């Protein structure tokens, strides 16, 4: 969807056009869902946060200025802030210990893959929120450094620092997996 099309849809949305809203939803919901899911891990509130992002799109689209940012950046910023609010209000749930995974009838290769995925998930979830958000946005969401910096409301240099520290920590946590 071109920027002009998106701007036109936002104008229609401001006038209460539900069809324009639906088109924007179809366009942005998958990416925002992936971001929130990766930020939240397995938290039950993941869907609530995604819904809240798009309720805000409906209610506060008048606050969005297409001249200043892309809609994707604006929505990710809302999602990021909601995730941070959630982390501040709730203690992280006890995560499943990878060593507690038992094979049952599962083939050894698949079990090892599941353990590995759980380790990576735990390593990502153990990162400080802003480092996690920076890595999710740049590695998984394909956001540019400028967009990610705008979402986190930091300079590009500060974003690079968050990314470097986050990746260094992940390397340390996943050392056993790597070797």
């Amino acid at each position: 969807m071109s920027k002009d099309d998106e701007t036109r849809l936002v104008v229609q949305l401001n006038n209460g056009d539900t069809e324009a809203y639906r088109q924007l939803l179809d366009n942005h919901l998958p990416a925002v869902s992936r971001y929130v899911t990766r930020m939240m891990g397995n938290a039950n509130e993941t869907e609530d946060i995604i819904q809240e992002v798009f309720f805000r799109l409906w209610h506060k689209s008048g606050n969005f200025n297409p001249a200043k940012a892309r809609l994707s950046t604006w929505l990710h910023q809302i999602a990021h802030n909601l995730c941070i609010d959630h982390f501040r209000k709730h203690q992280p749930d006890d995560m499943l210990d990878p060593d507690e995974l038992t094979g049952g009838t599962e083939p050894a290769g698949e079990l090892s893959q599941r353990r590995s995925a759980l380790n990576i998930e735990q390593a990502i979830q153990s990162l400080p929120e802003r480092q996690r958000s920076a890595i999710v946005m740049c590695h998984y969401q394909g956001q540019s450094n400028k967009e990610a910096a705008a979402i986190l409301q930091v300079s590009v240099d500060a974003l690079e620092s968050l990314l470097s520290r986050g990746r260094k920590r992940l390397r340390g946590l996943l050392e056993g997996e790597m070797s």
Partner: protein
Amino acid sequence: MNLQRFSQIINAYGAKIESWPIEERHEAAEFLQRDREAQKLIKAEMLLDQQLDDYSPGDIDVSRLTNSIVTAIVEHTQSGLLSELQSEPQPKNEPTTLSGFLDHLLDWLLPVEPIQFWRPALAASLPLIVGGLLGMSIDTSQFDSSDYWEDELEIMAIASSTSLNEEYPYE
């Protein structure tokens, strides 16, 4: 581009060229091709990128979520319109019955807000004013006070003679 900046870029953005800052991407890619140290450094980052790529969280049913969001928005909009209609001020009905008129009068005399003290005072003195007006409206010229006293004396005289006869009923 030098090794220090190249190292900073891959430490932050990883080994994938498409993740590097767009304005430095071309230079960094050229530097990687010609610098052995850069080629060594990037291997560790490629391994971490590979691990990150292997991790995929559980999928969310996007179409179900889309429908639930749209439904919630439509319901919210409809209930919002309904409550907007309900909160609209109703037109004031003019009093058509006596009780309606009295209510209207009472509201006028004793308003809730803003407080106007002269209205309750007027309400309190209303019986006095009405009594005064009634008194003034009665014509007293038709009564002659001398006639009144003569009638009284006559009645008294009749009453006395009646009571004497009652003392000696057999005479």
